[in-house]
């Protein structure tokens, strides 16, 4: 029990050191690389269709007030993603 908590803590620490975040943690103007999508097949498929998938380079264009959508650029496509969905996209800031 304690060991598993320790392990998950360590993973969290690694993630923090790795600067791994989700889309909603990035500020407008910051870029990053998508590490993956937390969530089901449906969400992943939808994001893929608009060019957001593991390995995509993204840049945050704008973020709206508390709980509002995040607008990102990937390639030359701009995509608006609702807050909840955006918080499922794991990214590494660069």
């Amino acid at each position, binding site marked *: 029990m304690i060991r598993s908590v320790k392990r998950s803590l360590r993973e969290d620490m690694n993630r923090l050191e790795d600067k791994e975040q989700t889309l909603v943690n990035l500020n407008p103007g910051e870029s990053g690389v998508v590490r993956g999508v937390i969530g089901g097949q449906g969400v992943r498929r939808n994001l893929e269709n608009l*060019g957001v998938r593991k390995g995509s380079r993204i840049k945050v264009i704008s973020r709206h007030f508390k709980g509002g959508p995040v607008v990102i650029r990937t390639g030359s496509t701009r995509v608006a993603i609702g807050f909840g969905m955006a918080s499922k996209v794991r990214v590494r800031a660069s």
Partner: protein
Amino acid sequence: MDKVLLLGNPNVGKSAIFSRLTGARVIASNYPGTTVEFVEGLLRVGGRELEVIDLPGTYTLDPVSEAEKVTSRMLEETFSGDGGNSSVVINIIDSTNLERNLNLTFQLIEKKIPMVIALNFCDEARHTGVMIDSVRLEEITGVPVVPTCGISGEGIKTLVDRLGEGVSSGLEYDREHRWEKIGEVVEEVQDLTHRHHSLGETLGDLSVKPFSGIPIAIAILLLVFEVIRYMGEGLIRFLFDPLFENLWAPLMMRLSGLLGSDGIIHNILIGKLIGGEIDFGESFGILTTGLYVPIAAVLPYITAFYLVLSILEDTGYLPRLAVLVDNLMHRIGLHGFGVIPMFLSAGCNVPGALATRLMESRRERFLAMTLMAISIPCMAQTAMIMGLVGQEGVSGLFIVFGTLFLVGLSIGLILNRFLKGRAPELFMEIPPYRFPYWKALLKKLWMRIIWFLKEAVPWVLAGVFILNILYTSGVISFVGNLLRPVISGVFGLPPEAAGALIIGFLRKDVAVGMLIPLQLSSRQLIISSVILTMYFPCAATFAVMLRELGIMDMIKSALIMLAATLTVGGLLNLIL
């Protein structure tokens, strides 16, 4: 007949290419049993006629949404037959977005669909530093690849010439790794050079950032309102009024004389003469007011509205508006995209209500339809309110539309609190700003005007006819007396206003017109305009809502409308 299907992602310039390919005769129709609309036209090549079909834009052939289901089904219907069929797909690709667009192309390849690829926006791609080797892409896929620019017409002729070469691609790869394969292909055919942000991009990004976007949105909406008002008023003053006064009125006066200036037939066709003359606002005959209202009073505003709407659609502004209002819309239980049905319903509630089908949940559709029926007057009604209340100055208009806005907002907040569930999330592409292709724009405007004339004129004529019968038979004064406690007591209006409420069920614009002969004070005009908007949808909207919501939800929705009308009408009567 052999078909040419235009297929591509949303916002790849399909409709501009469609306009280039086809002549003037185009028909918009719904796929049977759905609201998914597609447009058909004819293309003549070398003595042959081909049917060109512009399919709704789609990112994938996986049938996720209704539009994609329709697309898949139409592909199947067209290509499942035997060999004798030489139908072909034109897969239109946005060259500035090659990788994402190829996802759909590769799905077509997997389905062995014969096609030609159009690399559209080739000029825009060049400007933004994207070079695509179309010859190499043709070698890899084995299907003809033509760089095109729908707006300037570049490449369209080549595209038509090479339609006959459309084949299904022989490209083989592991379908599980489609994206990897796409990546390889892109790597091979695309060359990116460094580039600076273009002005359009900067502007595009400014209009989705909250601090710059909200002022821009307010400015655009005010501009839209002013343009519609000026254009509508101008068309009425300088075109339609002179036409009706100088050409139609003398003709009708002669007819009136032939009919003996009185009698039932005279009253139905011409209506009452006011001071021995025809008054197109007050006479209320089928051939006078019945024609004047839809054509001279409403059509000018409808034309202006749909022109502005088409420009907002084709330049790519609407998705940005959706992002900006997403937060607010969530408060009233909708998501940002809900602004589009709402905007549409400001033209006419019927397409607005139909557009709610794009929404995922039943809850959202119920909310959106109830809110639009209560608080959004259609352009026909708005035109009449502007004419009537606007006479007394702009402040009355502010009160009418401000009240309706606040009512919609409060009901939305309340319903969102008490209905179970919550709105799904916003997720959509934001296309770059583009100059609209004027020919495609005018074509769309024309189809919308024709649609309005077909839908509205018969209803108005029927409304005026029924009204005359109801008046002559005394039904209106009977109902008026019955409703007197409410109409006079609560709303402070004369009992004859009951007639307007009855006719409002047929056409709201005619109903507002019926207030003209009542000589109401300006506060009475304001109150009656507000309650006429809120109390119940017009028959056409009602029919759509009933079909979409079912009886139980329609009853709920109607009760909300009536309760809101009584409250708001009563309050206005006390406050004003």
